[in-house]
């Protein structure tokens, strides 16, 4: 007899077996031994959450990166990087104009305008990201707390850099 046919016959024999009559009662007893779920049911994170966070992070990064030219503009003219050139130009100009003012007089420091607009956008995006994290990851403290901590540290460093706080 073909082995496959024999297997099917054996399967049919087993499928005709009657489960024990007290099966329902036994299963019920097992279920009763499990404490009722008291904590709220944790629904899965919504589909749009991950793309949204990725998009917001990319936007924050973009805002930060586009700051670069503005930051270079913000460097005071008497800063370490530019003092030498500026002084040399200043001396040449003075010599050409015959001005006898003292060379010890320093050129005036520019008054850089801080990019408050962009910082505002950045903070807004960071707050939106944080709010989304709180709303979607509520009840999942093991994910929520590290996410918020990372976001806060990243945002603080970026904002400090944008406001040129490191140069002070």
């Amino acid at each position: 007899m073909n082995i496959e046919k024999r297997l099917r016959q054996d399967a049919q024999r087993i499928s005709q077996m009657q489960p024990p009559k007290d099966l329902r009662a036994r299963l019920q007893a097992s279920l009763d031994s499990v404490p009722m779920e008291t904590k709220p049911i944790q629904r899965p994170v919504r589909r749009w959450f991950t793309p949204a966070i990725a998009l917001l992070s990319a936007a924050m990064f973009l805002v930060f990166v586009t700051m670069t030219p503005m930051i270079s503009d913000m460097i005071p003219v008497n800063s370490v990087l530019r003092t030498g050139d500026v002084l040399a130009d200043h001396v040449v100009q003075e010599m050409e104009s015959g001005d006898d003012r003292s060379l010890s007089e320093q050129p005036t420091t520019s008054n850089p305008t801080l990019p408050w607009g962009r910082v505002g956008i950045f903070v807004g995006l960071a707050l939106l990201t944080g709010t989304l994290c709180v709303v979607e990851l509520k009840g999942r403290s093991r994910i929520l707390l590290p996410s918020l901590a990372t976001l806060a540290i990243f945002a603080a460093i970026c904002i400090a850099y944008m406001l040129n706080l490191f140069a002070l």
Partner: protein
Amino acid sequence: MDVRKLVSQAKAGDKDALLDLIMAREREFFGLSYVYMRNEQDASDVLQDMIVILYTRINTLKKNSAFYSWAKQILVRCCLTRLRRDKRWQPIPVGHEESTQHNPEQGLDLLDAVHRLPDAQRDVILLFYYDDKTFEEISEILQCPVGTVKSRLHQALKKLKGRLGDEYREEA
């Protein structure tokens, strides 16, 4: 019976809904448990283990419509866990398969021969023939590609034919 609705109720903590879902296919579940455990008592015990796990983990089930395949996946794992725990399950070491060949004097037990196959091949045979699952369903339950399922089935049948071929020819 609306499976999705009952699964939703079970997810909300309704134990009776979960029980109804299982009892609606009690024969299928008991049969699958029996082919692994090979006695009624153990088969019932495993079903009890399974329903507790189902209740505690039902919220991890994403598709309500996939409840039965998910539940059977858990049942198979419960069976294997219990077999290992009871130390009645002795995997055949490589190179020692000859010693486990069927002895014609003991009578022919096909299920016994199936249980002497390597785990992966045994699972495919049990699910395909004894639980009437399709290749796709088996691949979902065992979490392996369909091609692997087919290959395991082919190898298992070849081994069974090799071991039991003579007896079947005599019977036929």
